[in-house]
């Protein structure tokens, strides 16, 4: 286990332990999109199996974060000004136009022999969601990638066929994107 964690730490941007009882997984691994295959290889060698791949659309998350931060900063500035007996400053509008939205891809790994769940996640640019396929490592990933492409429009480069899988064959929409409405 410790060896696996050490090997994942070598390739991952961050590795942190999670509280299993509260979260349902033991290890939270964040990798760069180009490293998902390396992570898959490490877990494959350790005898792990891939349970699922899925996505999360974080549309507007960056803007919400920036606004929340600006609000907090303004509240602090206002309080400081009030304490100093000065006129509180005007809140300036937050410019969120330059912020990039992201999509998250989550891989759930588990082992048949011992209870140690590893979640690998990475984020891609929402305007150009692309990352390598891992179907060469885990052939079972093929279908999960097809499904994730259907639902989110995330492109897994190297996947043999990303035409609609669960959706109708002429589908040109991605229903789990947050800006999709029927």
């Amino acid at each position: 286990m410790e060896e696996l964690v050490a090997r994942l730490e070598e390739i991952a941007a961050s590795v942190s332990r999670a509280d299993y009882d509260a979260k349902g997984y033991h290890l939270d691994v964040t990798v760069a999109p180009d490293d998902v295959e390396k992570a898959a290889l490490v877990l494959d060698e350790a005898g792990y199996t891939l349970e699922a791949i899925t996505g999360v659309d974080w549309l507007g998350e960056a803007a919400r974060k920036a606004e929340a931060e600006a609000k907090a900063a303004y509240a602090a500035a206002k309080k400081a000004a009030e304490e100093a007996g000065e006129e509180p400053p005007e809140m300036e509008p937050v410019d969120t136009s330059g912020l990039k939205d992201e999509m998250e891809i989550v891989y759930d790994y588990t082992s048949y022999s011992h209870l140690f769940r590893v979640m690998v996640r990475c984020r891609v640019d929402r305007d150009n969601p692309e990352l390598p396929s891992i179907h060469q490592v885990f052939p079972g990933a093929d279908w999960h990638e097809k499904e994730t492409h259907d639902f989110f429009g995330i492109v897994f480069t190297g996947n043999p066929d990303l035409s609609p899988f669960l959706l109708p064959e002429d589908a040109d929409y991605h229903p789990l994107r947050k800006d999709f409405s029927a």
Partner: protein
Amino acid sequence: MSELALSPNQETFVLNLGPQHPATHGVLRVKLVMDGEYIVSAEPVLGYIHRMHEKMGENRTWAQFMPNTGRLDYLGALSYNHGYVKAVERAAGIEVPERAEYIRVITVELNRIASHLLWFGAFVLDLGGFTPLLYAFDDREMILDLLESVTGARLTFCYFRFGGVYNDIDDDFVTGTREFIKRLRKRLPDYHNLVTKNIIMIKRLKDVGVISAEMCRKYGATGPVARGSGIDYDVRRSEPYSVYPEFDFDIPVYHEGDSMARYMVRMDEIEQSMRIVEQALDRLPDGPVKAEKVPKIIKPAPGDYYSVVEAARGTFGVRLVSDGTNTPYRLKLRSPTFSNLSLFGEAARGMLLADALALMGSLDLVIPEIDR
């Protein structure tokens, strides 16, 4: 595997199996490239009854999604109820009274027996034996009646609630369940005499459709499919939840990896489920069946949560992403047969068509749960 099937330069043709075909047990299509009677390649085509449950989840409150969980796997719906409430209870930190957990285990195990019985009947029907189906449905009917008396439904259950169950079980249910177990104990040897030891059955299943343990791991297969390939993995034991650790039961594992092994795993699981139900009835504690302090509107703390249960077909997982509001931000349903079926293409290569149908039957497919 025949010489012909292995040499690609022979003349081949495409055969469409389904989407309306009795052997696919639902609306599944398989595109087969055939070389005579042998399969060169098999490609399942999914999505005929895709309903986008995951999007529905994002448009209703946590509690309003409950009925959807009964419509994924219509043969083992209570396991899916359990998987979902367990995930939300984990996210929202809801405690479940002991009696409620016992009732959950009793009803889920009864549902598992019902699911395996139906599979048994339908599987033997696939192989050309009609009579066992009638026996299996006869027994399964008793379970459905029992479950109907407490849940109000026969198939698409929506019985569990966050923090407990909707309805307490009564004495009639307890005595009825005991009687049923007594009856099924007598009937199971009949099943084995009639079907398991039948020479035609053995010839059709033994050493046919072998799936290796490594293939199971590479494709993420779980449940009876993995256990028929020698993998000792059952969520009830490997990742204990509910009150399962309190019961004494075995995990049947067969190492052959053929269709017969998967058949035997399920038949043995019926016996183990009966053991669990009996122990749970013996030790059924008194008390409430629903936690008192469950808020009307649930708002789990922001973050992601994962939770799995052992359904009749394997590992059912629910991944939740909460943004702290009263609706899920993302709700992912990981269904076991989706992964189990994904290995069909590789496993069926080079097989006779009739044997491949036996292999497909032994995977125990429920299409609404694959397509979601």
